[in-house]
């Protein structure tokens, strides 16, 4: 016999729906506000009338942002860093995790500690900056790729996954005389597809969103990444409120340019994100808790 649904139960359910829908609204509205501002006329934007619906719809600001050379060059740099960086980082982390997953080999635990220690302690900002300069990587895109290529946290997630693969599979291959590197390429990598897909996505997002490395190691305009370029647009707009009147004359307000830049950089993420969502969630389940 099922208990009658009480008032309390209904109230809890109703409150949950109300609260969660409100939260979703609070998250969506600021984004919609920026979208609306990006496609509204600049007079409407500067007057502060635009809420979540565009006023005086126009796409000129957005177009001018996207075709501007600074934006395309920055986007190109970000794509380069993200693609090459992800390839290198994924390979290195997957490769390093493989020998480290062989716990009974001597010295592996000690080597493991060498890796783990870097999660605890870092030399810090300035020593790293001086190193990049000394290596001649300053103002090179490699400075945005290599220092973060080995990510111990991601590497540990991959290592844990390898450990869950039964040894018997490897041993049967070993009898056929395959070397460890071939086993890694031909068996471990394909068998670890789920975890590698997740780490691949984590790494891509990290490279794409990385702003601080570019701020530290890049000042050549042609090498700026999208995040760095965007931060300059945003911080500039924050400072020169005085020039707003001048911009008004040119019919493009600083604010609508800023909004258009943010939206132009956000929309690609918003579009691909739902497709990637399930991998991310799987990944956080794999990585969050180590028994």
């Amino acid at each position, binding site marked *: 016999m099922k208990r009658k649904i009480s008032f309390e139960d209904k109230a809890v359910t109703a409150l*949950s729906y109300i609260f969660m829908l409100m939260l979703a609204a609070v998250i969506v509205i600021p984004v919609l*506000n920026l979208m609306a501002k990006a496609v509204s006329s600049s007079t409407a934007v500067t007057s502060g009338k635009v809420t979540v619906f565009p006023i005086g719809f126009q796409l000129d600001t957005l177009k001018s942002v996207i075709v501007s050379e600074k934006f395309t060059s920055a986007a190109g740099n970000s794509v380069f860093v993200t693609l090459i960086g992800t390839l290198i980082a994924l390979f290195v982390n997957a490769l390093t995790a493989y020998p480290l997953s062989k716990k009974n080999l001597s010295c592996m635990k000690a*080597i493991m500690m060498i890796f783990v220690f870097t999660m605890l302690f870092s*030399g*810090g900002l300035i*020593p790293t900056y*001086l190193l990049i300069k000394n290596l001649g990587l300053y103002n090179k895109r490699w400075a945005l790729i290599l220092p973060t290529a080995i990510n111990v946290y991601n590497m540990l997630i991959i290592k844990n996954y390898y450990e869950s693969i039964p040894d018997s599979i490897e041993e049967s291959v070993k009898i056929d005389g395959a070397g460890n590197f071939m086993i890694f390429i031909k068996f471990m990598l394909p068998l670890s597809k789920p975890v590698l897909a997740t780490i691949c996505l984590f790494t891509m997002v990290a490279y794409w969103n990385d702003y601080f490395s570019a701020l530290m190691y890049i000042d050549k305009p042609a090498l700026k990444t999208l995040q760095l370029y965007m931060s300059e647009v945003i911080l500039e707009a924050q400072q020169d409120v005085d020039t707003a009147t001048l911009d008004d004359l040119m019919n493009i307000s600083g*604010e609508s340019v800023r909004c258009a830049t943010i939206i132009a950089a956000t929309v690609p993420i918003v579009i691909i994100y739902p497709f990637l969502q399930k991998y991310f969630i799987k990944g956080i389940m794999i990585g969050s*808790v180590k028994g």
Partner: protein
Amino acid sequence: MAHIVEKKSKKIKTTGKFIKDFKLNYDLYLLLIPGLALLIIFKYVPMYGVSIAFQDFNIFKGISGSEWVGMDNFIRLFHSEEFYKIFRNTLVISIYKIVFSFPIPILIAIMLNEMKKIAVKRVVQTVIYLPHFLSWVIVGGIFTTILSTNGLINGIIMDLGGESIPFMMSNRWFRSILIISDIWKGCGWGAIVYIAAIAGIDQELYEAAEIDGAGKIRQILHITLPGLSSTIVLMLILKLGYIMVEGQEQVLMMYNPTVYETGDIITTYVYRIGMGKMDYSFSSAVGLLNSVISLVLVWGGNFLSGKLVGKSIW
């Protein structure tokens, strides 16, 4: 005596085992080289470079040529009032973040669990996870836009008859803005761990509770929350471990000189002094102190979580 012999033979055994392991699996050890090389160059060399914290570093002379000054930079640090200000800001902002933003993902997970309409639930989940994937540059841009004097929030305030508030310039508001934007960006994503933990709770417990006549609230208090407790402890300890280094990009994107008083934290200060004023040695000293405190916190946190809930990061 017997003990010593045993120890000795054990030592021979381990070196012997290493040689044997290495001969059999030398290619496995070789696979470590790329990872180790990157690690040593980009993580361990800067640890050696931190010695400039004890020097009066001159970029033309390098580490080997610069003059050693012992603890001078640290003495200067402890005598500077600015340091206490940023140290306090770092702690206060991090602790506020833990107090206010830590419980929200737990609440979200519990409420999502009460939503039985799959379609609605899915839409809500998709929306609330999204901000996690936006960079702090974008989130900073969004918040400076909606909080500007002619922005969305001030529009609402003025429609309600209030006076517009220069949020981003206000020391009264800046910390709240940091915490709110932190919640905005991370609360949905933070809930995933708890959603997974709730999924792992035995459903029979709820059925039994229902037969005993327990309502939803009591089920949440006596089944869901206890089921989440070990995850909560683990997440809390992890958070505590990172209080000194958290929030750098966020603050860099959102602050300006008018709110240094309440918003400047150690990591942004290190950046400003080091890169802006080129005071490499002093900046490294601040950074080193911060790294040491973090080391103790992270290590201690991991140790604690291992002891308390039997889970740890490594």
